[in-house]
């Protein structure tokens, strides 16, 4: 039984200094699958994720979770494009979300060690998180997001500054996460990654969801000329 889904978004928009960053957006999301949010720079991918997660304030419209709004955020996690490393060790970074939920220190650290092992950071538990490489940081950020077992995971271009090997490692982690039933909403610039991971696609343009379709429908035959041009690598304005 899902706490969050079905999710319906009705005319939601977010503004900054009077300017609409994204919206109005209307969406319906089911409890399973991986939604890839794609679109050109400035289309509003990050803003959409931030609005859905509640980091960006809703300027208008509604986001209807299956549970109360304040309850909904407890079942979600967010991985940022530039992973935020707390000034602590790897283990303490991982344990922090658990400590926030009231888990005892010893238990939180044990679970942190297990998760560090799962993402290949088991040998780095005592290392300061701020000295990790880009790929290691992103893996740590993903593990930290997953440690509270969220129902929904947002990822904002998690592989944008990583090389091929680190990207593959991250994708393997995300495959595993999706397999155990975690709902993923992820933005990306990498169409190969969108094809590999996505079960549905939201194509954004000028702050609006221009096209929303199953991945196996969208990629072979996008419905709009702009989406077709974007997939062909043309400049879409």
């Amino acid at each position, binding site marked *: 039984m899902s706490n969050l889904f079905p999710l319906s978004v009705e005319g939601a928009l977010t503004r900054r200094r009077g300017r609409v960053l994204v919206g109005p957006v209307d969406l319906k999301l089911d409890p399973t699958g991986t939604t890839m949010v794609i679109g050109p720079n400035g289309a509003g991918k990050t803003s959409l994720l931030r609005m859905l997660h509640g*980091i960006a304030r809703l300027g208008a419209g509604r986001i209807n979770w299956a549970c109360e709004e304040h309850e909904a955020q407890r079942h979600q996690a967010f991985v940022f494009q530039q992973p935020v490393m707390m000034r602590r060790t790897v283990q303490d970074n991982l344990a*922090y979300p658990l400590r926030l939920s009231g888990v005892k220190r010893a238990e939180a650290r044990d679970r942190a060690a297990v998760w560090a092992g799962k993402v290949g950071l088991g040998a780095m538990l005592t290392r300061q998180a701020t*000295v990790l490489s880009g790929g290691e940081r992103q893996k740590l950020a993903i593990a930290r997001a997953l440690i509270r077992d969220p129902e929904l995971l947002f990822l904002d271009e998690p592989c944008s500054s990583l090389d091929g090997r680190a990207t593959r490692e991250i994708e393997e982690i995300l495959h595993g996460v999706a397999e155990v039933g975690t709902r993923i909403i992820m933005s990306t610039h990498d169409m190969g990654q969108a094809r590999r991971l996505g079960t549905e696609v939201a194509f954004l343009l000028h702050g609006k969801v221009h096209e929303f379709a199953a991945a196996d429908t969208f990629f072979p035959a996008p419905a709009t000329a702009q989406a077709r041009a974007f997939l062909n690598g043309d400049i879409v304005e």
Partner: protein
Amino acid sequence: MSDLLEGALQAFWLVFGRDPVLIEISLRSLRVTLTALLVACVIALPLGAYLAVRRFRLRRYVIAVLNALMGLPPVVVGLIVYVFLSRSGPLGVLGLLFTPTAMIIAQVIIIVPLIASIAHQALRELWSDYHDLLISMNASQGQRIRALLWDGRRALLTAALAGFGRGIGEVGAIMVVGGNIDHLTRVLTTAIALETGKGEFALALALGFILIAIAIGVNLAIHMLSGTEREGRW
């Protein structure tokens, strides 16, 4: 120049001769300032973190006033504390005037704005890094403040040391509220002022060198104990 040399020599003999008066006033200096520092940190560090995290209507003005209070004239603070603690003042009944407690109160008032301002500056930077993450993790206001205080502890150490520096070298306020009473409220700075007034420049200089040595020693000790500048540590 001869006064300086004589002062250095006298300082050497005072220290290595374990002069009991010197030990007494040095320990009192440390006790007063470290106690004031502890109390000030308990007030100022959470205040700095709160101002970094919380947005409220008059926040900008509170920060501006706090910054302005960093330059609070100690002698004026001393005078105000004196008025409050004097026999006819609102807190006169406590009988604290001309006691080390009165000196601690004056020092706390002087160093709280300094520590809070430096802490706020340091934690504001950290908060801009942590803002989205902690909101995303659904951290409460108290949890956010605690995270900033813990993760920013090395920057906060600088704030505390600045407060210590201001406190240990302070003379105006503690002279007014302490009275520089021998064996009771005399500390290094007031003793220096007294010896200078008596024309005992060499002794005053000797006490000054010892004061500087104590300030440097405490700073070094705290830095070493907290592991600042260790590789890969914050």
